């Protein structure tokens, strides 16, 4: 079966509405707009590689404070016990709640790392033109896009706990600096996945590619 890239034919799908438009020459000060949704047309997402690198590096740097600083502090009768993400997971496991411990571990520790490693792999594949299966890279990209949102679990849980345990001087739970850093990691990785253009993986192939 013979496959043809849209770009080879001077066509592209609009980023916003996936409407197929013909790319036309425009002066540098102007931009072509989609005839259906009026968005600016780009053949590929603009500056995709550098923007994705920027978000990935941001996420990678913030991953350290997110895991090292306390995400929440339980204060009970004046004694505070700060919890990092990992110590929270360990507490749950010690109390025998293995399924929930595993769930929190996957959502808060495993997923952010997998996302960052996956995105770096994709960026390196595109930049160094590594001969990896384009189809599998696209599956990796789709998985990264899908799992990102589930990392918000920990933040929602903290927002629930701070209101449930609010007994003034007796007991209270406060969100820590680690939670802010972790929230930023989640947002940075979601933006990184959004700015990456999976079509770049397929552009590495010859314009006409026989399958």
């Amino acid at each position, binding site marked *: 079966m013979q496959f043809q890239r849209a770009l080879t034919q001077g066509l592209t799908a609009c980023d916003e509405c996936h409407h197929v438009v013909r790319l036309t020459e425009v002066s540098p000060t102007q931009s072509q707009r989609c005839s259906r949704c009026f968005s600016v047309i780009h053949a590929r997402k603009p500056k995709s590689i550098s923007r994705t690198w920027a978000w990935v590096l941001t996420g990678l740097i913030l991953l350290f404070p997110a895991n090292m600083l306390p995400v929440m502090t339980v204060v009970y009768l004046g004694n505070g016990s700060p919890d990092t993400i990992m110590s929270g997971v360990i507490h749950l496991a010690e109390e025998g709640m293995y399924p929930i411990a595993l769930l929190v571990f996957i959502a808060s520790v495993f997923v952010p790392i997998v996302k960052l490693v996956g995105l770096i792999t994709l960026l390196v594949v595109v930049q160094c033109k590594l001969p990896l299966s384009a189809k599998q890279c*696209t599956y990796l990209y789709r998985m990264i896009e899908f799992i990102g949102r589930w990392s918000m679990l920990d933040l929602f849980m903290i927002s629930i706990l701070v*209101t*449930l345990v609010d007994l003034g001087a007796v007991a209270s739970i406060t969100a820590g600096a680690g939670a802010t850093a972790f929230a930023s990691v989640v947002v940075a990785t979601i933006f990184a996945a959004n700015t990456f253009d999976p079509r770049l993986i397929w552009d590495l192939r010859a314009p006409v590619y026989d399958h």
Partner: protein
Amino acid sequence: MSEPLPNQSLDHDLEEHWAACHDCDLLLPIHDITENRVARCPRCNAVLYRHKKDSMNRTLAFSIAALLFYIPANTLPILSLDILGNTGRNTMLNGVLQLWQQGSWWMAFLVAACSVAMPLLELGLLAGITGHIQSQRYSHWLPKMIKWQHRTSGWAMLEVYLLGIIVAIVKMSELGDLVLGQALVCFVVLLVFTLCALQSFDRHEAWHRCMVLRQRAIAKAIACQ
């Protein structure tokens, strides 16, 4: 098998004949698919479009139904915890307020966006789009709404919030008397209807209907002159 390729003469009705895969840029002729079938890219398996039965009607119904449950789900207590006679109540809104008061404004902002603002925006946009289409009215807001629905989809994270509630229940059940509030029911109903509305929404058809309405509006404007 090789597909015929478009040439310049097809340019004016490209949208009728061609699709380009958004993941691998493969050029494909659009085939009409039967109801409840999915068109996938033969090269990378991306979902190009799916034909959903009675999409506009169902999305409108589900999104209005979900909106009815939105206010109780956000303002009534979802969980309350009794420790030594003191009761802590959690509603979706006071969780955000508490974080804000503790100084974690960035977290408060994110939680507010993903669990309160974005779901409302999503439902409002879905109801707005399908309401316009069902009443056969065109306004310049219609393409903007479809575009923004596509942009913001993915930021409404009610299902993740539900998982957060479950983890909180497990964590706190040993500390004191945990009572599940009325809003938990409202929240689950809101979540189910939101997912149903999103599941039944056919963006491909929405764009198609939007274009038909726009052409009709233009023809009418010309006829009036």
